[in-house]
């Protein structure tokens, strides 16, 4: 039986590469200056999906929820070997917390992508580091979850044998399909986009992009979409109605958590006492430490 594997991906600000250019003079980060990237561990999830497809046959479908520009990571996914990609994007999805996000994603899966065998997502995203959406999607879909899944050892009929890497512990578990896995970076090294696919999907477009282009070219949107579809270049774009979402459960109204306050981390700047790097300087530092009883 060919597998249907759904990969959940997110476009995130590159918080790990905060360089001098994005620091403001007051020592805080200029968030708008951070590049938008494919969440690193979601690439590990995609790689795991592609390897499973190669081993067992089937299809890999990548879903992302985000603003229109998040289509960038979907195009990237196509160029790495995904069979189908879906952009979940609607102004009403904005400001979703993890509960609203998991509802929206689960709703999209339940409306259009049943039945499936596995859902794979990165262990966590580097913007929020919450690691919550995966387990919450699993709960909404009513399926089992295996977090920190760094190897799929085998698919044995209706069960999947999985290795979990919990840092200080390793587990081998047997999970009934369908199952959701969250994948840590230790799982694999993601492949690079393929040159042939880069050429092929250069012209792939989401509904948002089609709208803008059709206007420029003076063609009808339907026309352009039909044309792209024929060539396998139309990126499905779903809003709230397309997935039969209850509006009270998406976006800000579906998000029980609210941000009360955000503070930039500013370096405190203590009263730093400098000592010279020679023997005299170092001896006086040690003497001071002994006198103030940092030792003994």
């Amino acid at each position: 039986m060919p597998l249907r594997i759904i990969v959940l991906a997110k476009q995130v600000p590159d918080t790990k590469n905060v360089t001098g250019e994005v620091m403001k003079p007051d020592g805080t980060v200029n968030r708008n200056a951070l590049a938008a990237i494919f969440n690193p561990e979601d690439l590990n999830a995609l790689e795991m999906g592609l390897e499973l497809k190669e081993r067992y046959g089937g299809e890999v479908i990548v879903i992302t929820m985000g603003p229109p520009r998040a289509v960038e990571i979907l195009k990237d996914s196509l160029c790495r070997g995904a069979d189908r990609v879906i952009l979940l994007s609607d102004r009403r999805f904005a400001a979703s917390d993890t509960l609203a996000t998991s509802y929206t994603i689960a709703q999209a899966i339940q409306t259009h992508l049943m039945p499936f065998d596995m859902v794979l997502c990165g262990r966590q995203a580097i913007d929020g580091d919450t690691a919550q959406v995966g387990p919450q999607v699993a709960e909404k879909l009513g399926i089992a979850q295996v977090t920190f899944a760094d190897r799929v050892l085998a698919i044995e009929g209706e069960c999947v044998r999985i290795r979990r890497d919990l840092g200080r512990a390793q587990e081998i578990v047997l999970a009934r399909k369908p199952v959701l896995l969250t994948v840590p970076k230790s799982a694999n090294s993601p492949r690079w986009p393929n040159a042939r696919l880069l050429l092929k999907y250069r012209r792939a477009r989401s509904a948002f992009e089609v709208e803008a282009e059709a206007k420029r070219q003076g063609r009808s949107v339907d026309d352009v979409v039909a044309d792209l579809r024929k060539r396998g270049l139309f990126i499905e774009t779903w809003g709230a109605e397309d997935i039969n979402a209850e509006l009270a459960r998406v976006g800000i109204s579906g998000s029980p958590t609210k941000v009360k306050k955000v503070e930039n981390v500013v370096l405190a700047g203590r009263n730093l006492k400098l000592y010279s790097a020679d023997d005299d300087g170092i001896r006086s530092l040690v003497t001071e430490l002994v006198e103030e009883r940092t030792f003994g």
Partner: protein
Amino acid sequence: MSQHGEVWVYAEVDDGAIAGVSLELLGKGRELAGILGVPLAAVILGSGTRPLAEQLIAYGADIVYSADDERLAQYTTLPFSRVLTDLIREKKPEIVLYGATPVGRDLAPRVASALKTGLTADCTDLQIGSYESAGRLYQKKLLQIRPAWGGNIIATIVSPDVLPEMATVREGVMHAPDPVEGRTGTIIDVPVVLDSECDFVRVIERHTQPRRVDLRSASIIVAGGYGMGSKENFQLVHELAAVLGGAVGASRAAVDAGFIHADHQVGQTGTTVRPKLYIACGISGAVQHRAGMEESAKIIAINTDPEAPIFQVAHYGIIGDVRDVIPRLIKAFKGKL
């Protein structure tokens, strides 16, 4: 009677003992329950956990909900989340806190989703305070404080309209209370009702390795960064730690460069520490590292770059090459100790 529900701490069992972070949460939970004027309860799920339930009372729980059943001998998501979700629905606590451990981060989101309630991950502080929105004032809400954006911002999150308010809390940032012998409390047995879906995941094998180093209880930590230059040079960090009787820590860059095992990593993705003395050798002081060590009582930074951010959290600084400074420090310490 208080208008608020109880404050709960999920007491995680780790290799037959209560996880350190759960004890830390009892300390914080005690404080929050005091402000709300409600009892502090611990919830423990496991098999043969009665003695641990007694311990939870000594550490400050007024009530212990104990689900003691052989089917819960090992943590798996579905049965644990089932029992906990049912119990929360029945008892309606105000607040439920979990350690941000692999178990807490697996369990809490599943429970939050089932209850359609809010959850904030990996908090570093919790307070009770008010929240105002659209002209409405919410009082005595749980303020859930956590770093985000790779530690570059600190966000305060509230869940004003839902109960329970739930959060996972980073290990090592809160203080465990001292146990009080003979403290009394109530242990309430929780019935365990599971259905067939709870058998969807089975643990076939489990191996654990002890931690190579116990950074959390070390009073002196000597930590090395990428600036140590090589695995061979990193030996100097081990030597200085040995002279001082301290533990060896490392920055993420040093771990990524292969100088030392990840168990030694201090920082946001490693261990949070607050020793009496922290010596940062060749560590530039990225925000993720500082988040894990800036509460150390005394910090010495050694770095060639006078602009390195580590100097802004340090009490003492030496601008110089670690390969030159560390041997001199070893010599000076040997003369004094």
